[in-house]
């Protein structure tokens, strides 16, 4: 499985953390004729906004159809799969992976418990609101996330 990117949105709908990973295929073999020629599209700041809009609309749609206790889990297109996890405090975690990946709900839950709560919430120097990503981009969280995702791939 391949993880393309990961986003965290706070309860004010602001993107407070975004990270993308390069695909494992090296750039040298992509130049071979007829070989796999897919490269990562450079992520733009608009991507986070588009992703939030999508996730927000789909979540509302799902709640309308499936009842208030229903939760939007993931969607898949022909090229990628998006996983979604929302905590009780309206913190939203989003992850983009390749299409073959199974449900990543528990993975996102683990990131919330083991990384977010441990390194961001329990950090006494971290502010309550993470405006512009303040307090999220700390060394331990970044390192832990990188290791965790690296272990999955």
């Amino acid at each position, binding site marked *: 499985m391949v993880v393309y990117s990961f986003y965290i949105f706070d309860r004010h709908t602001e993107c407070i953390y975004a990270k993308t990973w390069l695909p494992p295929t090296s750039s040298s073999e992509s130049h071979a004729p007829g070989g796999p020629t897919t490269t990562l599209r450079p992520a733009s700041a608009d991507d986070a906004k588009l992703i939030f809009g999508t996730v927000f609309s789909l979540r509302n749609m799902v709640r309308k159809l499936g009842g208030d206790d229903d939760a939007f889990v993931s969607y898949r*297109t022909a090229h990628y799969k998006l996983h979604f996890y929302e905590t009780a405090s309206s913190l939203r975690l989003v992850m983009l992976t390749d299409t073959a990946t199974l449900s990543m709900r528990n993975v996102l839950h683990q990131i919330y418990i083991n990384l977010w709560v441990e390194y961001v919430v329990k950090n006494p120097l971290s502010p309550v609101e993470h405006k512009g990503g303040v307090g999220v981009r700390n060394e331990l969280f970044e390192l832990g996330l990188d290791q965790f995702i690296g272990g999955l791939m």
Partner: protein
Amino acid sequence: MFVTVFALIIINKAGGLIYNRTFHEGGLHKISTNDYLVLAGTFHGVHAITARLNPLKPAATLNRTSTSSSTTTTAATGAGGGAPFARPDPPSGLEVLETENFRMQCFTTLTGIKFLLFTDTTQANVDLTTRRVYDLYTDYVMKNPFYQLEMPVRCDMFDRKLGSYIREINNR
């Protein structure tokens, strides 16, 4: 494998709701026709965004020019050799949406009509079911001389055939 089909929605290429039918009561919440119209429009927009969010980008243009000179001489027999400017894959929007209570399969035709099929969460060949529904649509809606394109579907034959087909699945 017990697949229960809850509902079917057909959205035209402009994002308007043209068909909406519930097959199984209790699967989805009852919402008003107005809400269905809103839902169809919202989904149409979201579908367009999901196609744009693709993290992978197709083959770069410089790649194509560097390989075309070498392939034209050698790979004239292959499908790629005859088309140095191979067309990229069409952008693909949302295909399957999963939630805790239901699963939604979206099938987009080349003409831009979307078939949304709501089923329960057990996955088993919902893809085939949407294709079959599309077959029924082409047979009994598109071939109906009184049907106007992009307008709501009101065809008796389609209703009947679709009803019996879905009943067959739900009673399996």
